[in-house]
């Protein structure tokens, strides 16, 4: 193959990056075996369902910590090759199906699962001190003008004055980009993160800066969400070295500091795929160490309704509903309310069930009117509605 072709190399990198984000669930081998007729005990056959129930129960009792431990293992997915137990008399204590040790096929030299690229995301990884920002390659840091279509800037102050770009005298190109900005919202499991997509103006490719400034300055479109950084907090500087971005802000988060940090980390890493950790500084002084994304089950709200967006006006007829969820067996329910009464409801299955995070979509036919759409899940324990994400929409 031709490795000199730059477009080919670019495509190779994009596909590699996209592919690396795909994390299969750990139970594929078990599912295959069930269908190839390998005999297993009755318990083993029903184990996935039992475990899922047990997991939910643990959640209800002990809260997020035990849950995330379980998930941590499953999400890593790489099944450690252990004792061969092809016909388990007793179920393995682990949630993940473990393949028995087997001869290495000649075709590959490394059947042993290699560490996932995600390993580097673990908080324990790479605690080296931050290099001085002056040595670090800096992002193009011209000022970002406020986006013209900004829904509701809540900062009463005028936009901060532009800092001069140190590297270039020609005017940096301004483009519009869609960035994901994270905000917090209350759930039955405490404060968790939601995501809004925002159109922002990006100057000279400084898309991380644009996303973080949007996160600090703009009010979320959905009134159920809120930012965790104090109003008026400014970006003093952003520099990037390797996969780490150092963000210097004018003030620390007033409360919920861990989730505020995750709000910042998620926003920064969503926009820049080559960034995995964020080092926070406040007025130049480092705060904590480099921080990566915490496990999604710890920080993201279990159910997101991403389409329609809050305040959308849509033509009557078929309305598309979309979202992302980490829910038991992937079952997401939705309701459409008019004057507080449920007028339409349904459910669908996300592309992945908990502990995975899957996308879901469904459609509903609506006549003209004002509605509240909400996506939610029902507790596996007592059937109570949970984790609702709501949007007000108008159908004309």
């Amino acid at each position, binding site marked *: 193959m031709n490795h000199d072709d730059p477009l080919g190399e670019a495509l190779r990198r994009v596909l590699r990056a996209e592919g690396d984000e795909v994390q299969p669930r750990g139970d594929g081998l078990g599912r295959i075996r069930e269908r190839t007729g390998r005999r297993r005990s009755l318990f083993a056959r029903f184990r996935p369902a039992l475990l899922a129930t047990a997991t939910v129960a643990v959640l209800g009792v002990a809260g997020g910590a035990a849950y995330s431990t379980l998930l941590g293992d499953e999400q890593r997915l790489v099944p450690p090759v252990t004792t061969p137990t092809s016909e388990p008399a007793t179920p393995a204590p682990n949630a993940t199906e473990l393949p028995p040790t087997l001869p290495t096929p000649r075709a590959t030299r490394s059947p042993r699962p290699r560490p996932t690229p995600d390993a580097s995301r673990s908080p324990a990884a790479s605690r080296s001190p931050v290099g001085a920002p002056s040595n670090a390659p800096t992002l193009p840091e011209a000022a970002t003008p406020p986006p013209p279509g900004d829904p509701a800037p809540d900062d009463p102050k005028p936009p901060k004055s532009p800092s001069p770009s140190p590297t270039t005298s020609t005017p940096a190109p301004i483009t519009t980009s869609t960035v994901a900005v994270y905000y917090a919202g209350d759930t039955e499991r405490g404060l968790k993160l939601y995501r809004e997509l925002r159109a922002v103006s990006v100057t000279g490719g400084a898309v991380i800066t644009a996303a973080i400034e949007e996160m600090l300055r703009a009010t979320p479109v959905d009134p159920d969400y809120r930012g965790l950084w104090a109003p008026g907090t400014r970006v003093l500087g952003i520099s990037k070295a390797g996969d780490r971005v150092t963000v210097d802000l004018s003030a620390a988060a007033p409360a919920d500091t861990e989730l505020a940090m995750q709000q910042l980390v998620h926003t920064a890493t969503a926009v820049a795929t080559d960034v995995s950790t964020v080092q926070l500084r406040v007025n130049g002084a480092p705060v904590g160490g480099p921080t990566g994304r915490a496990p999604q089950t710890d920080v993201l709200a279990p159910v997101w309704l991403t389409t329609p967006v809050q305040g959308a006006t849509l033509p009557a007829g078929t309305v598309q509903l979309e979202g992302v969820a980490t829910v038991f067996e*992937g079952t997401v329910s939705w309701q459409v309310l008019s004057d507080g009464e449920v007028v339409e409801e349904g459910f669908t299955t996300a592309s992945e069930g908990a502990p995975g995070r899957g996308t879901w979509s469904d459609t509903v036919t609506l006549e003209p009117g004002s509605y509240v759409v909400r996506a939610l899940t029902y507790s596996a324990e007592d059937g109570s509605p949970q984790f609702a994400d709501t949007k007000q929409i108008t159908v004309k």
Partner: protein
Amino acid sequence: MEPSASWDADEAVTALYAAHYRSLVRMAALLLRDTGAAEEVVQDAFIAMHGGWRRLRDPDRALAYLRQAVVNRARSALRHRSVVERHAPAGSADAPSAEDGALGALERQEVMAALRRLPTRQREVLVLRYYSDLSEADIAAVLKISRGAVKSHASRGMTALRATLEQLPS
């Protein structure tokens, strides 16, 4: 290690699963854009491989068979998919996004969007070539088309991607 000729179908599934399941799921997800559907397609392919092991008897051939089954099944899954997620943003499942690639998020988003707009064959050829790193001959075998056809799908696909990338601010 005892070579694979003596494996039974169950052992072959287990060994090939350990070595290739993840990369096959990723390949299928690049074609399908849905991890759950990708896993189903790959599991189906393994089950078909299990049934055909008596004929295959060789891990290399079994792997080629798996690839072929995955691509074919992904193609028919796409054909039957009712909802086209045309306007979902990149990383719509909110997967973590820490990669080595130097490409920016915007550029990557655009490349993936352009790839998804390509005709099926062109997309398959590019994924097999640039993600799975297969040779022209291997791609021809997986897709059951001639090497000349592989070349022409690849070159038309790349021309379309180039046109997209040239519109991006650099």
